[in-house]
């Protein structure tokens, strides 16, 4: 469960102050399916970055599964991020010199999880995403849809409680986009909280809850 209380985030651009988040309060239950929409500069990326523990608000509280993330130090936030949050990016961000399997394994490797435990978890994920036969291919040998599936595998291998997807279908043709969306929705059906940031109204409309943002506020 996520709770945001009166979040404020300001950026200084030259001598202008931009209110990226203006008194945002929000409660998200475990397993919700939410789309965040709004024009560029409305604050949705900032909201994602703060939810993903990549950025901090200037004021206000962020409770993630009961832990007050705003009060934590950088090391603890890093731990929390790798335990609870999975990221899916528009441009996949796969490491080109690693195989699909190694890309999926990467978060576990960075967390120092023993090899044996890793193998089982990665096998499970690859199996679930139908990527077993692509496991030893490098990213440039995969199609866009397959790459995004590898990236989703990487996002869920640590069994996070929330999946943050930033325009996950933005670089895909409609067929692959549909597949990826279905995959994300099926993961949501299994209980993971899914939050998609998108410009695409049809994609946004599929979510059970929509957040429209404008000038740093949820409207």
């Amino acid at each position: 469960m996520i709770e945001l209380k009166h979040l404020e985030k300001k950026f200084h651009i030259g001598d202008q102050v931009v209110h990226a988040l203006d008194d945002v309060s929000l409660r998200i239950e475990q397993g919700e399916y939410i789309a965040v929409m709004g024009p560029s500069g409305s604050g949705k990326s900032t909201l994602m970055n703060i939810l993903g523990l990549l950025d901090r608000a200037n004021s206000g509280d962020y409770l993630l599964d009961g832990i007050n993330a705003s009060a934590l130090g950088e090391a603890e936030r890093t731990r929390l991020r790798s335990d609870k949050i999975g990221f899916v990016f528009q441009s996949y961000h796969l490491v080109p010199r690693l195989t699909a399997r190694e890309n999926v394994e990467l978060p576990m490797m960075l967390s120092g999880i023993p090899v044996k435990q890793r193998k089982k978890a990665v096998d499970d994920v690859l199996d679930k995403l139908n990527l077993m036969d692509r496991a030893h291919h490098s990213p440039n040998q995969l199609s866009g849809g397959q790459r995004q599936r590898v990236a989703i595998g990487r996002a869920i291998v640590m069994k996070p409680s929330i999946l943050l997807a930033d325009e996950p279908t933005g670089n895909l043709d409609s067929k692959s986009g549909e597949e990826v969306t279905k995959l994300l929705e099926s993961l949501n059906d299994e209980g993971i909280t899914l939050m998609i940031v998108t410009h695409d109204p049809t994609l946004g409309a599929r979510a059970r809850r929509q957040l429209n943002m404008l000038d740093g506020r949820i409207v």
Partner: protein
Amino acid sequence: MNWVDAGRWVISSVFSHRFRSLLTALGMAVGIASVTLLTAIGEGVQHYVLDSFSQFGARIIAINPGLKETHGSGGLLSTVRPLTLRDAQALKQLAGVEKVVPVVQGSGTVEFNHRQRNGVILGVGPDMSEAWNFKVAQGRFFSGDLEDARPTAVLGYTMKKELFGETSPLGQYIRVGGQRFRVIGTIEEKGQMLGMDLDDTIYIPAQNGLQMFNRESLMEINVVFSANTSLQHLEKSIMQLMIDRHGREDVTLTTQNDMLESMDKILSILKLSVGALGSISLLVGAVGILAIMTTTVKERTAEVGLLRALGADKKTVLHLFLGEAIVLALMGGALGLLLLFMLTGVLHMALPGLPVTFNVFFLGLALFVSALIGLIAGVFPAGQAANLDPIKALHEE
């Protein structure tokens, strides 16, 4: 992140740009090879020179007329009293003194049967052979008192070979500086020291030498002392004796240690400067690593953002990039040693006489130094990577 994974990550990163990494490592390799080779040559020369000096034995004190500060020869105006054979005699009576060798040196023509040779003529005492460890090959060395003047001569190896060839010189009469001498022995081959042929020499009694070169004073007296005598104590008693005999302090004592020390000092400076010259190329190698690592960090900015998002902290990112720099540098170091062995092989064929000393310690040190250079060259780019803002980094393509 555990060490094995970090190591594999680093290696895979380095090998993802094989050619580029190889070229960077090659820059380091040239630096390592040149520093190691130059230091090894310096080391070899140092050993070689010190060895050729210490072949005379370590327990020698040289006494020269004049104080250390007074340069120039003892001319007419000199107030320095001559160093005489009587002084040498007196030194021999001192407790702890085993052997005394008076030395007077000149050069001149040595003739035998219409054969002539110009060489060094050394006037010495009967103790020389043993004191300097110049072993007699044939016949015998001078015997009797060190003030004796008998027209007898001992030939150095080259001198004997040039004048007599394979025939025995013993008992033959030769002319040295116009005077007749009878050959009583030869000295075994000693080789060269600092470019001086020690074998192109003829030895005559010191008294004859002084007379031949019309000198009053010996050039030097060498004193060999017994093993259980304290050097400091003996130096003091020698100086006291000389002051008693000459009325003032007018000689300089040089111990073998002094000689070796000053020689060692000069050679160490030489070695250091040669090594410093080589280090310039090492510096170039380090700059190469710095440049390539800076480029790598730029190229992989988005990847750094990803690693941070996936739960790597700043320290992990720092370590991974430092690791890359160190691996590059170590590869360079290893390549450099390979290059070094090839160069040494070539050198050995071209200049067989050049003394080159390698020891395992230096080779290990070379690898350690390359790792250290990698670390230093990597600090800046790795720090840059670690301090990237993950949000901005993720949006970099």
